[in-house]
């Protein structure tokens, strides 16, 4: 009897607590943000994603944006999987823990690996930047255009070595798209990081490479930039380098490294709407633009709806592109 009584009592208490919690949830959303907002970066400090995230969030404390500072929380490992797995499984859903995303990396990983995240359990807030992959070659290379590479590859299939940062990242996607669009066979060398991939091109250890537009731009005339894997040219830094499409190879923007902020699924809709509006504004701050330009990092600001559409488009495309591998 006393056991039953206990259970009933415990049940009522739990119910009561739940009823109490419900209004609290709403209150949290109204007061949001009530504390500094943490943004998880799935890469180490000093990397491109990290320093761009620091730049674009530095104005968060202003009243017209979040009225609370944003702090960056680095959780690197396994090409971003450690940090994103943690975020999708353990982060809070009250909007005080957000994360930076890298497309196509996290989508490709969720397709190829057993990850805890995918586009369905994450909510984009806004996009701040886009770093397209570019095809580069050593400065004394015989290649001067995408067509030169295609011609050589057609004549000698599988002999052109192409370095890139790793597997299932933008560079790898660009390489796969290039092979498919031009109907050629190349040899992709995953170098374990963009800097190492760049070094292999600088040191003539590979015949060509895919790398970030911003890093290739910084190398100046120490390398040749043959083509941009995007839908349009990059106007600010490399206005003279034609896209793949202009050179007759149908490679679109699927490999472009889009960076932005996301929340966990389950975050209250009011909070997401609030963030989607304010974060989008925050990215457009003049100081952010100035500092991003000084760092050689291209900005591309997109709204939550645009990012939702972009994610939804990437998912089936990448599934198809990566199907042939393994």
């Amino acid at each position: 009897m006393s056991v039953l009584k206990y259970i009933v009592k415990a049940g009522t208490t739990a119910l009561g607590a739940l009823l109490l919690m419900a209004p609290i949830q709403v209150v949290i959303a109204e007061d949001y943000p009530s504390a500094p907002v943490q943004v998880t970066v799935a890469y180490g400090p000093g990397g491109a994603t990290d320093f761009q995230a620091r730049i674009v969030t530095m104005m968060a404390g202003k009243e017209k944006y979040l009225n609370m500072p944003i702090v960056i929380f680095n959780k690197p490992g396994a090409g971003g999987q450690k940090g994103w797995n943690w975020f999708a499984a353990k982060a809070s859903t009250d909007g005080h823990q957000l994360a930076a995303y890298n497309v196509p990396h996290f989508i490709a990983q969720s397709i190829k690996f057993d990850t805890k995240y995918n586009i369905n359990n994450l909510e984009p807030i806004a996009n701040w930047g886009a770093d397209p992959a570019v095809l580069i070659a050593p400065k004394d290379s015989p290649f001067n255009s995408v067509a030169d590479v295609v011609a050589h590859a057609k004549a000698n299939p599988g002999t052109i070595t192409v370095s890139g940062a790793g597997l299932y990242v933008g560079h790898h996607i660009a390489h796969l798209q290039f092979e498919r669009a031009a109907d050629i066979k190349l040899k992709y060398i995953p170098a374990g990081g963009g800097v190492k991939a760049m070094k292999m091109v600088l040191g003539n250890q590979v015949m060509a490479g895919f790398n970030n537009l911003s890093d290739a731009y910084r190398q100046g005339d120490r390398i040749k930039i043959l083509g941009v894997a995007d839908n349009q040219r990059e106007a600010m830094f490399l206005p003279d380098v034609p896209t793949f499409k202009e050179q007759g190879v149908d490679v679109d923007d699927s490999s472009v490294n889009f960076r932005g902020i996301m929340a966990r699924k389950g975050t209250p809709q009011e909070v997401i709407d609030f963030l989607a509006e304010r974060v989008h504004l925050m990215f457009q701050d003049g100081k952010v633009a100035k500092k991003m330009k000084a760092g050689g990092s291209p900005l591309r600001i997109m709204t939550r709806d645009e990012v939702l559409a972009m994610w939804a488009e990437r998912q089936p495309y990448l599934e198809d592109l990566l199907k042939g591998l393994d």
Partner: protein
Amino acid sequence: MEFIQFFGDVLTLEIMLVLVLATGAGLVLGAMPGLSPTMAVALLIPFTFHMDSATGLVLLGAVYTATVAGGAISGILVNIPGAPANIATVLDGHPLAKQGRASEALHYCFISSFIGGVIGVVVLIFFTPPLAELALAFGPAELFWIAIVGVTVIGSVGSKSVVKGLLSGAAGLWISTIGISPIFGEARFVFSDHVTGGVHVVAALIGLFAIPQVFQLLVTAREKNTGSLYSLESHRLIDSIRYNLRRFKALAVGTVSGVIVGIIPGAGGQIAGLVAYDQVRKFSDDPDRFGKGEPDGVIAAESANNAMVGPSLVPLLTLGVPGSPTAAVLLGGLLINGLFPGPDLFTVHAQVTWTFIGSLLIAQGLMLVLGLGLSRTSSYWVMRVPSHYMAAAVTVLAVIGTYSIQNSYSDVLVMATLGALMYVGSRYGFSAAPMVLGIILGPIAEDNFQMGKMIAETGEGMFSYFFLGTINIILVTLCLVSIVYSVLAEVKQRRRGGTVVDAGVDRSLAGGLGAAVLSLIVLGAAVFSGSGEAFFFPRLLAVIMTGLSIVVLWDGIRSLRSSDVREAARWRDIGAGSTVIVGYLIVLEMLGFYASSFLAFALIALCYLPLRNRRSVLMLASVSVVFIGIVYLSFEHMLQVMTPRGILF
């Protein structure tokens, strides 16, 4: 000479102030287990964000220099290298400290660091353009051979028995294959979510060195019940300087090795000290003295790892290609300040660049002065810390140090597991240095081999790619020389009456059995958990491990001599401590980091308190509060590490 022209800019009040603070802080940070130079620079990058570019870079450069040297302090005094770069320093530095020559060892460490460091910066100032070209000549084949040169010295580094050293090294190489392979994109041996990202070198370093040391301290606390760890002789600084400068050969070998390893991108500047240490021992008239407190070991290792700093910036500043893991993080520091590596640095941004390089030179001097100043005091104080407090402090620092590398609780668990295994292993003659070396070299060897293989297959073929070309031929020759030398040395020693030191505990049957069982588990995992090229390396290593463990087992059977009686007492000694540590790890995330650290610290110290009365317990409580307070202030506020909050804090 542009360097001179801009040198005046270094001598401003603001820059000098930053330099002094950064050097002092760097020495202290470097001395903490887990705060490697790479970590320290990474943690400080966000701070430079709000400074002007010159000041920010000066801060990062000075911290880089000072942490590399500071890592030797904890290595020499407590046998825990502050960073992978200081492993070689520990091999002879700690034995020196045990003999009561701690401050002398620290003198050698800072004097050699200074000499190596200055020469390294001079190389950076004068030879940058030609060396940058050389740096680019190292492709996958060359880097593979460099790693193999490192592998050839594994067996003889810091281990009494070559077979056990090789076995530890092979185990380290195998551990490095855990996680998602960057080349194959395949998960290997990810038996738990905690190792998806692999085993981080620094987490392994802390576990393998610090945890056995914690247990060792607990045993000491039970046995002696006395305050100080070991005695401290006074040694005059001037004598140290005189002696140090006379050890020209050790200094030269150390500095040259450091400069060369620093320039090569991807070779891992961490191995500079070990390469130098091994060379000096090989050139020595009496290699047997090494490992027992030979000053030359400290001199070579420390001059090498500081000589590495300047040259590791050569390819970074000219090509944006870092020469060491720390330089790689520094690249982020440059970019965040809007400075792109390349000719622009020396023209458009000449003032910032030369101020930075000039400040590195001054930082070396400050490091020398502060370091020498600290030598006597720090060894005096560390020596006076009672073992039970030391054990408690090392435990807490190891945990937070490991956590802050990647903000990862998984890393803490990996660290503790490896550490516990290593403590057991160390009772049977296995040692930490070869294992860490294996973990460092594994990815360099495997990734470069696989990349080289891919490139070779598109054209010239494996033989020509890996064996032809000047640098390859030099490196292959070095490997052969190193192997032949080791074999000859071993033969010579066996003839002289067998492996002298390898007796008693070293050869016990249990050690061999344990090693064999673990190796067979690894072999089973390597054979059954996957197939294809990605498992070629791990399988090869598992077979080698099994073979070596059979040799160890055979040695054990041949000398059936039981020494396990004494062991029993040891296990009882560390029982209470290990229980507290296990509990600590379990409640860490739930209770919150600082609350559980406080409890762990107080409980470990309480369990091992020699005299329990009102006064000593009161003392213990206040020490615990002060210690956790300092940890809290430095990690939470100075370094802004975000720790798990849990329900308390």
